[in-house]
């Protein structure tokens, strides 16, 4: 007797699609809707995991844009510590969709404000990307001078970008209540002072995520009319939660929301695609081998797997072998990846 399941391909069944297949050899997991080629001008942004994506795309010869290349002959590690070469702009990690919306609006308006300059030990930091100047700056004026230049450079880059690859990382954020500004890190962690009367913790809900994705997409298309988007969800768990519960539950909650929001948004828009990096890394058939012993950092093998899947599906695997953070299993894949939220781990008792 025929029924809807009788003619399905092997990947439609858990046993033949996952359980009996090597976790590193999944097939048909990703069929691109948004196609890219070597000449496609791509911008990358997002959480720490997005840094792997940008590096791998560059390694494969894809034209990843860089609005702010390191202008000085610094060693690569120093340049990265100063936020160069991590993404298509020197914005540091964009953990939440709201942060992306806020940045795109700032680029549009060019507005900067001294209200978002943090101080620590006589040094000054851009509160909206405090990690990109690890030594701080001399004065609030210097912070604003560099932020203006940053926003101008991003405007030029976004006008060129054909595809914007965004990795959704978190749903938890700290918000400056009077202004509604969302921070990259909790005030006081890198610089600034935490003020419980104005800094409020917030977990973005699914409707908020949906609305922010719509806003972000619209803003991106205000810079370039037919810009397309590829969304991914970072498989990297939360370093810490301030939500009052267990970090494992908070992580699952956050990733579930992000996965749903990204998937639904991609389904609803012809110019938006979802790439399942989250699924590849968290696949139970991998039996945890795609995570380092700290159960948080993603292994070099996993990064290679993710990007190999992406490039193969895009028809770019034969052009150049993907070269993610490291193809050498002996190397730490987190080398060169800059994650401000890791600082929270220092507060663990």
């Amino acid at each position, binding site marked *: 007797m025929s029924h809807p399941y009788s003619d399905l391909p092997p990947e439609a069944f858990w046993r033949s699609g996952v359980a009996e297949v090597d976790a590193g050899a999944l097939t048909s997991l990703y069929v691109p809707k948004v196609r890219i080629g070597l000449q496609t001008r791509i911008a990358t942004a997002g959480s720490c995991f997005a840094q792997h994506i940008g590096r791998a795309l560059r390694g494969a010869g894809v034209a990843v844009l860089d609005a702010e290349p390191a202008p*000085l*002959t610094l060693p690569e590690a120093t340049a990265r510590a100063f936020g160069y070469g991590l993404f298509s702009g020197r914005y540091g990690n964009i953990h939440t969709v709201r942060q992306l919306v806020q940045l795109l609006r700032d680029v549009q308006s060019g507005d900067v404000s001294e209200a978002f300059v943090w101080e620590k030990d006589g040094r000054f930091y851009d509160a909206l990307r405090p990690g990109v100047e690890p030594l701080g700056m001399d004065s609030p004026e210097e912070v604003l*001078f*560099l932020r203006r230049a940053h926003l101008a450079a991003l405007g030029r880059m976004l006008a060129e970008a054909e595809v914007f690859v965004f990795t959704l990382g978190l749903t938890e954020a700290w918000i400056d209540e009077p202004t509604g500004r969302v921070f990259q890190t909790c005030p006081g962690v890198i610089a600034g002072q935490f003020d419980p009367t104005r800094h409020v913790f917030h977990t973005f809900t699914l409707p908020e995520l949906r609305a922010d994705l719509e806003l972000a997409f619209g803003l991106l298309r205000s810079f370039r009319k037919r810009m397309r988007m590829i969304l991914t969800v970072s498989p990297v768990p939360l370093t810490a939660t301030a939500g009052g519960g267990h970090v494992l539950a908070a992580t699952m909650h956050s990733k579930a929301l992000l996965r749903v929001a990204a998937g639904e948004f991609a389904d609803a828009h012809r110019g938006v695609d979802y790439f399942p990096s989250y699924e590849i890394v968290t696949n139970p058939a991998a039996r945890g081998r795609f995570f380092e012993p700290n159960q948080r950092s993603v292994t070099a093998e996993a990064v290679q797997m993710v990007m190999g899947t992406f490039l193969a599906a895009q028809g770019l695997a034969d052009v150049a072998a993907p070269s993610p953070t490291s193809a050498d299993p002996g190397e730490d894949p987190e080398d060169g990846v800059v994650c401000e939220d890791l600082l929270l781990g220092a507060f663990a008792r």
Partner: protein
Amino acid sequence: MTGPGPRVLVLGNSHIAAVKAAHEAAPGCWSALDFLGGQGEALASVTAEAGVLAPQDEAARQNILHLNGRDAFALADYDAFVVVGCKLGIYRALAPYRRARFLGLPSVARGKVGGYAAPVSRAMFGMAVQEGVAACLGGALALRIRASVQSGVPVLIAEQPRPSFDCRRAPDRFGEVLRAERLRDGPPLTEMFEAGVRAALPGITLLPQPSKTRAGALFTRPRYGNGSVRLTAGDRQYLHPEDDFIHANAEYGALVLDQIAAAVQAPRGTGVSPRL
């Protein structure tokens, strides 16, 4: 090495010639010195092994042997070490200036960042200067010596002279420094360089270019460049071409010797220093 006072080894690339020429012109004027000169990058392979400074590369060894008559110098024979030139100079601040500007520069304050230069933080610019200082021939050599001798032994570095102000005749070769001068960015670049040396070369004393030899913030007065000689093996001196603009002469070298003498507290002799 002869004479009383501290025993000093002076190491350097082509810029050591000015110091050597001054010393040879008035040997009684300063404490006795030994010279370890090396052309080009020869000093890059000089390291201290078992208490002896020697080149590890055969081509460098040949060059140093030819120039100095020996290729090994026992660290214990000296009370102080001075690195001369070796790319440690204002160029270390001008290199990042080619591609970046920071807010403390007068040109930036006047809104003249320029399309080819990216705005960066002062801290990052300083970091780039420090990296360049530590990695350049002179900085790296001084650090190797510092690591090989006891902390009480002075290790000095005499900065490479700024280009002669006559380099205005060669704007294609000196465009960046001329532009910096025109934009009045020289003083903060000098500060950046000197701060970079302090940060990148701990335990090493900078002997800055003698102030009387400077023209503005970024140049050397031409009288201290005219008649500069090449680093050679014998007594015969070969002049640099007139459009060299990079090297200083023996009169300049004499001022550096005075700085060295003051720094290592050597008694000054009665000789007359060269006035060319």
